[in-house]
């Protein structure tokens, strides 16, 4: 379970997140939508402590931290409970697909080599890239790289996987295979928070859609309500624009 209590993030005098309150149940699939520059990515990055939030408290699993007072150990611990999938994949260029997935098990969780690689191989098979075990990122397609990126996040055994626009950098031909893998994870009830502009994914897969604007949660609910019966004018406006270019 994840619980955010009035989580804020300021960059200098700019308020990017303005007191976010949010509870996400284990196994829930949450999709976050909203105009660009409204704090969606920052929200995910704060949960993973890639950005240090300015104020608020955060609970992931059995760990609660006051973000202002979080020490190094707590930050590491928070990062280890959350996994991140980057827009530009961000695979380790000096490691093979298998090593990218095993890295966390070896280095962070200190698994024995054999076990770590066995688990990494299982994950590679799950993401359909068993034959790419020894390939380096430079020799893989964008779609394959992003699937390995997701595989790396799966290896963490994290409470939640945070997806930051996972298909935005992909050529259109690779989008489906990545969304397919995400749907597979969703069907296994992996807790997920997804920032995306893929509205059909949101509609078909999300348990809950959250609309963020100006660093605040404006509206949230099941996709059927948000997409077909939005209440707030800002939600209506955003959906009208995005559905014109990106129909459900």
């Amino acid at each position, binding site marked *: 379970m994840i619980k955010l209590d009035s989580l804020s993030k300021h960059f200098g005098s700019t308020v990017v997140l303005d007191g976010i309150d949010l509870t996400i149940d284990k196994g829930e699939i949450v999709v976050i939508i909203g105009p660009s520059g409204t704090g969606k990515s920052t929200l995910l990055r704060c949960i*993973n402590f*890639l950005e240090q939030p300015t104020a608020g408290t955060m609970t992931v699993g059995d760990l609660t931290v006051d973000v202002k007072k979080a020490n190094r150990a707590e930050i*590491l611990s928070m*990062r*280890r409970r*959350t*996994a*991140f999938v*980057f827009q*530009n994949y*961000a*695979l*380790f*260029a*000096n*490691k*093979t697909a298998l090593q990218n997935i095993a*890295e*966390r098990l070896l*280095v*962070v969780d200190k698994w024995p080599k054999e076990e770590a690689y066995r688990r990494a191989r299982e994950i590679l098979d799950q993401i359909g890239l068993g034959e790419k075990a020894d390939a*380096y990122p*430079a*020799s893989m397609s964008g779609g394959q790289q992003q699937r390995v990126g997701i595989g*790396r996040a799966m290896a*963490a055994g994290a409470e939640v996987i945070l997806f930051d626009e996972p298909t935005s950098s992909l050529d259109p031909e690779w989008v489906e295979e990545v969304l397919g893998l995400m749907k597979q994870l969703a069907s296994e009830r992996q807790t997920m928070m997804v920032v995306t502009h893929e509205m059909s994914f949101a509609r078909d897969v999300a348990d809950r859609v959250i609309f963020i604007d100006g660093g605040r949660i404006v509206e949230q609910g099941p996709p059927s309500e948000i997409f077909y019966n939005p209440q707030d004018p800002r939600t209506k406006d955003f959906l009208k624009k995005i559905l014109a270019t990106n129909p459900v």
Partner: protein
Amino acid sequence: MDVLNVDYMLGLVPVLLRYLPLTLQLAGTGMVLALILACLFAVIRVLRIPVLNQLTIVFISFFRGTPLLVQLFLFYYGLPQLVSALTVIDGVTATIMGLTMHFSAYMAESIRAAIVGVDRSQTEAALSIGMTNGQMMRRIVLPQATRVALPTLMNYFIDMIKATSLAFTLGVTELMGATQKEASGSFLYFEAFIVAAIMYWVVVELLSKLQNHLEIRLNKAYSR
């Protein structure tokens, strides 16, 4: 043609070869120590560790800004005057100290540039899976920076091998010092120094071959 005494030159080869190990030892030890120091400086600079960062900047500025020969004389002749305990410093030690500090200043900058050049998203990814800064440096950043820095570092190593010849000014009989002695005994300066030159040249060529092999190996991960 009595201009060039070939027999003398051939006879000189085994004599001078005996001094090559010392030359290589000076360069090898200097290189290892300079690399360690340079990595330390580079990390201090990248992480901007307070105080150490400023000290490192001054150190690099001084050792890049003054001639190696001046530095060697400072270590060998100058320091013992200030600190009497250092009178025991011999020419070999002073040379290694000079080479280490001089070249670490140069290498620190190229290592720093290589570290900064590693894609920021990869360092974020390393942190996101819960690695510590140290783990991130060791496993992700430094291996990739090594590949980028390798050609320049090898250049410095080559430069350092040649710079060991300055040790003869501190009375060290390495390849250059030995050649100087042989030449002033036989008065065949051209023959003696051309043999020494070829020896340096061959060593550097062998090193370039090694560099090619290393580069091919390190680039394996990055080719499509």
